[in-house]
């Protein structure tokens, strides 16, 4: 059994027809329940729920206060390299893009780590493109050994790996993984990943589960919103998170909501997502999965992120540089995507405090 089978079981479901038929009473019913089923989740994702957005926000606020309290966890991304064998049409690092390619030497890595650690960040997310030649598992493992001296929690956002490879990295000190399916529509997936190892839909889809099986402490999944119908993508992201949570109850599951934004290569999103729709997706997800973490990155603007605090978000990136070596030498290479919130860690912390919440820098350490 894989999440693939659950996805397949919805293949014949008429989403558009369902969304069109949602009535106010369906939204009310979903809002009155403590445990939502799939139909309730769909009702809250539907356009009909937009008329009840305030009620959704109030309930989400209660849910987040009870489950997470008045806190927001912070982390920073650190790009190790941008070599990539894939051709993902939406990504600034795709193989065919004529950008400067680079991977950090270990000396450069230490310099980046020092600068980030100085801001007080204790949770680091390391990223690479998919190049097993330039940035193999052994390189990531050695990088983790260095980063352990600066950070208490290390997550990876790299290419899909085998259980054995995840186990190697866990033993080296990795405790979290972020791995996004980009789209749960298999045909579209093939279309936006025309070449490279990432083209294997099933290997990608099962990667979070392989990380769970290897004993990863936290696993973050999600779809790149803007590639297709964001309501359907949010629905499958939620279902995927629920599947993992039920099968691996000891693992902290979270969902990211990355909204497509401009990057090198100039890909334009197929479906633009208004702020109101984006918020509805986040609230529906929060109510469907009260205990699951929700991550909002610096793809979103500072004032918008501020408004989301207390409504559903539990984790935010801060002070992000999305180019390789970007902390020590800004603008040395092209970023993977455009960061809308350019605030420093200090400014993000102040923003969170101003909203009446506490920024949490450390939430785990190797034991």
């Amino acid at each position: 059994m894989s999440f693939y089978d659950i996805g397949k079981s919805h293949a014949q479901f008429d989403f558009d027809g369902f969304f069109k038929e949602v009535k106010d009473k369906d939204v009310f019913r979903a809002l009155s329940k403590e445990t939502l089923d799939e139909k309730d989740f769909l009702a809250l994702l539907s356009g009909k729920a937009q008329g009840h957005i305030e009620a959704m926000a109030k309930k989400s606020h209660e849910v987040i206060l009870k489950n997470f309290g008045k806190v927001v966890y912070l982390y920073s991304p650190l790009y190790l390299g941008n070599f990539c064998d894939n051709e993902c049409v939406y990504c600034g690092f795709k193989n065919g893009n004529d950008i400067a390619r680079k991977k950090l030497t270990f000396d450069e890595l230490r310099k980046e780590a020092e600068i980030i650690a100085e801001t007080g960040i204790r949770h680091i997310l390391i990223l690479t493109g998919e190049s097993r030649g330039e940035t193999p598992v052994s390189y990531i493992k050695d990088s983790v050994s260095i980063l352990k001296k600066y950070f208490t929690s290390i997550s990876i956002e790299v290419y899909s790996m085998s259980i054995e490879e995840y186990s190697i990295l866990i033993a080296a000190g990795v405790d979290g993984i972020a791995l996004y399916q980009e789209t749960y529509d298999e045909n579209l997936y093939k279309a936006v990943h025309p070449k490279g190892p990432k083209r294997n839909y099933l290997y990608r889809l099962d990667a979070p589960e392989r990380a769970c099986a290897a004993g990863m402490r936290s696993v973050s999944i999600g779809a790149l919103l803007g590639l297709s119908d964001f309501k359907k993508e949010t629905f499958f992201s939620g279902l995927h998170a629920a599947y993992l949570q039920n099968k691996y109850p000891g693992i902290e599951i979270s969902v990211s909501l990355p909204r497509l934004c401009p990057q090198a290569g100039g890909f334009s999103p197929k479906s633009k997502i208004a702020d109101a729709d984006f918020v509805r997706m986040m609230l529906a997800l929060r109510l469907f999965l009260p205990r699951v973490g929700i991550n909002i990155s610096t793809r979103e603007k500072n004032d918008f992120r501020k408004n989301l605090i207390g409504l559903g978000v539990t984790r935010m990136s801060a002070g992000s540089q999305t180019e390789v070596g970007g902390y020590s030498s800004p603008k040395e290479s092209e970023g993977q995507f455009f960061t809308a919130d350019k605030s420093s860690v200090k400014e993000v912390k102040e923003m969170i405090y101003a909203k009446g919440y506490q920024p949490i820098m450390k939430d785990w350490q190797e034991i």
Partner: protein
Amino acid sequence: MEDTLIIAGHKINSRFLLGTGKFSSNEIMKESIKNSETHILTVALRRIDMDSKDENIMDYIPDNRIVMTNTSGARNSDEAIRIARLARQLGCGDWIKIEVISDNKYLLPDNAETIKATEILAKEGFIVMPYFNPDLADAARLRDAGAASIMPLGAPIGTNKGLCAKEMIRILIEEIELPVIVDAGIGRPSQAAEAMELGADAVLVNTAVAGADNPPLMAKAFSLAVKAGRCSYLSGPGAVKETAQASSPLTGFLR
């Protein structure tokens, strides 16, 4: 009348224990601690950052309180034991709240793993306070394993639902001679008072204080409610009657 809570030979000045997570700032937490008059505070090791210049939670805890490190994040006994040892190495002392949660959906404690961790840590000299799902047989196992108190949940953590497990907790109070501290699920001061009237030795609260609009005021409310509940318990409230006293009782002919 002397009424002191004693845990592992230590005289505890307050029957209200406070958790330090979930607060909107360390300053508000500090103010809440002051108003709570609490003697024992729980702090998650995962949040303690001794290297931080301005964010170390320990800097906001008054010196004259007992810090009980909790093993939040432990998914089995082995992880709970490692966290406890690490806490001791960091100078956090010997008071340990064992919290083993292998279920992130409902956050219910794993009793079997909790018992294992209790046994090992008690042997290593820790003052072990296990958080568990109220079950009489498991409570006896915890006692035999060397627990200094037992901490049954009132309701699933963070739910503010109150004493959902009231009947089970009542049995623990009657049968287990260790201090019984109701931990988790208490959402309002009235529910804390209810637990104390039932005969609980203390209550531990976090979400209900940290999540209030005015946490320091709520801390004070809980402190008062716990005292009121304890006084009520000690004073022996009159029995509840289901019916009014009939003026012509059925057994009146016996007079």
